[in-house]
């Protein structure tokens, strides 16, 4: 399938203080969001391979856009996540086809490594709906300081025959993380969990 991208938005959020405390290191989160045409809107199609292939292409493109927007080297990325919002005439399974079978590998290339599962969310909705992209540490899913998320919304998308596809990457966890759990300096990064 030739991927029809109508628009791409890139957001960078840089938190420099929280609760009147200036952070030692600002937390930076980026999201790259593509609006694509859903070739299967309005009808049931058994074979979703074209969307799986589009997912691979988007994993690379959106991952690279996030890394570029953060102004970092790929290995400096700490957390990642992905999400999709399917327009009204599409099916939740279309989001699954984009996100799950093939997006992970090129996304991991974009951030160098990435042993952990890429956390994800999906839903169906209309233009302007907020989409919460979950974030987790890319090498060890149990790093508690990096359990986070990033909300995005595109005012004019998804139209009924579109899908909003988003990848988020961060450097840093929550601004004032202090609820314990596995710390970044304890990560082994072998099994993707710890």
């Amino acid at each position, binding site marked *: 399938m030739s991927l029809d991208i109508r628009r791409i938005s*890139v957001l960078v*959020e840089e938190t420099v203080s929280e609760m009147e405390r200036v952070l030692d290191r600002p937390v930076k989160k980026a999201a790259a969001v593509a609006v694509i045409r859903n070739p299967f809107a309005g009808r049931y199609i058994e074979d979703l391979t074209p969307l799986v292939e589009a997912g691979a292409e988007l994993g690379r493109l959106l991952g690279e856009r996030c890394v570029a927007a953060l102004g970092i080297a790929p290995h400096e990325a700490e957390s990642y996540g992905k999400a999709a919002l399917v327009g009204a005439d599409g099916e939740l399974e279309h989001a699954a086809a984009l996100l799950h079978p093939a997006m992970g590998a090129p996304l991991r290339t974009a951030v160098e490594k990435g042993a952990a599962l890429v956390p994800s969310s999906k839903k169906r909705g209309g233009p302007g709906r907020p989409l919460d992209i979950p974030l987790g540490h890319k090498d060890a899913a149990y790093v508690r300081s990096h359990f986070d998320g990033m909300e995005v919304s595109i005012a004019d998308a998804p139209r009924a025959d579109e899908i909003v596809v988003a990848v988020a990457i961060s450097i840093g966890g929550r601004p004032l993380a202090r609820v314990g759990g596995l710390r970044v300096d304890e990560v082994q990064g072998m099994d993707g969990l710890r």
Partner: protein
Amino acid sequence: MPEPKIRKFLTLVEEIHHEGGKPAAKPLRRGAVVAVIANPFAGTYHDDIAGFMDDLKPLGLDMARRLIDALGGDATAIESYGKGAIIGEAGELEHGALWHVPGGYAMRELLGDAKAIVPSSKKVGGPGTRLDVPITHINASYVRSHFDAIEVGVPDAPRSGEIALVLAMTTGARIHARVGGLKAADIKGEDGLR
């Protein structure tokens, strides 16, 4: 007045390829930068607030630089602009008006001799409030192809004692502009209108 206390920045860049018509050879870029700052006047009525405009000037320049960088770094590529503010609920609409002078000054300072008034919008709202920031041509307000807007919002801002300040810029006209009026190529650029 002390210098503004900044909590976070949000930078947004949209790359628009098409909207159902022929994809543009050069995609339109629309961008916005938001700074979330403490509102020094929140909670009580202050008669004398105008001095804060000067305090906001360095922040305005920083924001304008961030936005031009996010749009590719070339100030001469910027064709239209706008600004706005969302004031947290312990503040007053008038606090948003403090942004007119420093916001406009900052963009003109970096965009050269921009002639046209900077269109603006402002409102009081809570975290996640969306603001439609109007956008018009930097040298001639009547250029119809450049009448545009960008929607911005920060999911966790403004808190009640905060203000979200916004600058917006684009690299061109609406993606399929075709409703006539004054063309960018025909402007005189003397009075800021035509």
